[in-house]
């Protein structure tokens, strides 16, 4: 292969890549805001005793867990405007699509953490005279929320990586800017390598932080 690496083609054009990274970060943070809050509400619904609440919530979760994220995003971008006659900006659409996906996965994280609280703790709560609401607020939720943090962070950084999928539907994120730059400069190797390294530089520290957090929690 007769190819001379020219990283300058990328470093001279970091402006668009940084613009793309900013969009990617916006997508990630906003989708996480949705996922952390709505995921919790959804988890409460999936653990409800009432089938009217539980079944639709479980259907929602299973739909997002059992279809590829790329199909969800493409479906959302093409079908939602046509079905509901709403036209939002691409970044907002991306946030909602990624946010719904994360909501489903976070709901599972919360549900698992709620169910992981030992039954004996609830028995002890009854023996201490706490009401059902007091048991949930003082025994179940504090433990469940604490245990769910590592999974929420892992899901959250996962959505940072998945967000690259919205480049396909024209959202000007990091991946999209990389594609554009690679085409314009005829430098796909340099460009996509740098793009990958940027994703890595952000994901890796968060992953390490999660590892540290899990180690710390397992000692306590």
């Amino acid at each position, binding site marked *: 292969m007769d190819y001379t690496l020219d990283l300058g083609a990328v470093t001279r054009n970091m402006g668009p890549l940084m613009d793309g990274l900013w969009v990617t970060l916006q997508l990630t943070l906003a989708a996480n805001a949705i996922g952390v809050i709505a995921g919790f509400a959804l988890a409460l619904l999936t653990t409800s005793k009432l089938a009217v609440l539980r079944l639709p919530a479980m259907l929602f979760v299973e739909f997002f867990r059992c279809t590829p994220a790329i199909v969800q995003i493409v479906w959302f971008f093409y079908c939602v405007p046509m079905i509901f006659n709403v036209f939002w900006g691409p970044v907002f659409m991306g946030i909602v699509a990624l946010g719904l996906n994360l909501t489903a996965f976070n709901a599972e994280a919360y549900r698992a953490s709620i169910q992981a609280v030992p039954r004996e703790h609830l028995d002890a709560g009854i023996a*201490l005279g706490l009401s059902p609401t007091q048991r949930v607020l003082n025994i179940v939720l504090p433990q469940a929320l604490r245990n769910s943090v590592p999974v929420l962070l892992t899901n959250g950084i996962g959505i940072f990586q998945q967000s690259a999928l919205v480049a396909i539907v024209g959202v000007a994120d990091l991946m999209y800017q990389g594609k554009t730059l690679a085409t314009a400069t005829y430098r796909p190797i340099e460009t996509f390598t740098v793009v990958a390294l940027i994703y890595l530089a952000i994901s890796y520290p968060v992953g390490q932080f999660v590892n540290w957090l899990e180690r710390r929690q397992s000692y306590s």
Partner: protein
Amino acid sequence: MADMRDGSALVEIRDLHKSYGPNIQVLKGLNIQMMPGERVVVIGPSGGGKSTLLRVVMGLEQIQGGSVRFGGKPYISAKGDKTVIDTELRKQIGMVFQHYTLFPHLSIMENLILAPRKVHGESRASARERGQKILERFGLGAKADAYPSQLSGGQKQRVAIARALMLDPKLMLFDEVTSALDPELVAEVEAVILQLAESGMPMMMVTHDMWFARNVASRVIFCAGGVVVEDGPPEQVLGDPREERTREFINRVFHIKA
């Protein structure tokens, strides 16, 4: 005669039936009358319904038949498919479990004062003061700000006892509270229970430790097959049982221990 004693019994269990699912009958018409000040130790083979009995008295289980009175008042009864439990009476009973049930996200002191504050609306300062006294009485005065993960198993069980006592229970239930402990930690927990016994606390407990049973009990009940087989003072039930099944059990247990 039974009717005369009804009014004064602390706990009166009548014809108690409890099953898990349609096929597993654990309690099959169990009767116990516990008088105030008594320390009842329930012994018997595994699966004989001992722990279930305690859980029923704590109001943790649905029952399929019979009733429990507490302090002379109706406490638990089976009404058709439903179990009716008087949750106000339930608050007068404390329980310590086999497995550690301290809440790991709360410090020792916070474990102690949670229920007094939430259930009785006691002020934080007053609850803390009482908590500190109980911890000191149990040799745990320095552990108020520690977290459960920093304690040994024996310390955790002593805290669990202290936590239950914070609510001034009229009856304490101990369900194999030393079974999960390393042998060298058993004595410190048993010492705390003996201390409570000497202070006159009524208690009902399940234990496999026959030495301890003999020391703490004012009365021993041998439970097998979901019914009371023998019921009497410790010297009789543990020393010279009248029933053949009790005798077999006692011989086996003491044989293993020797």
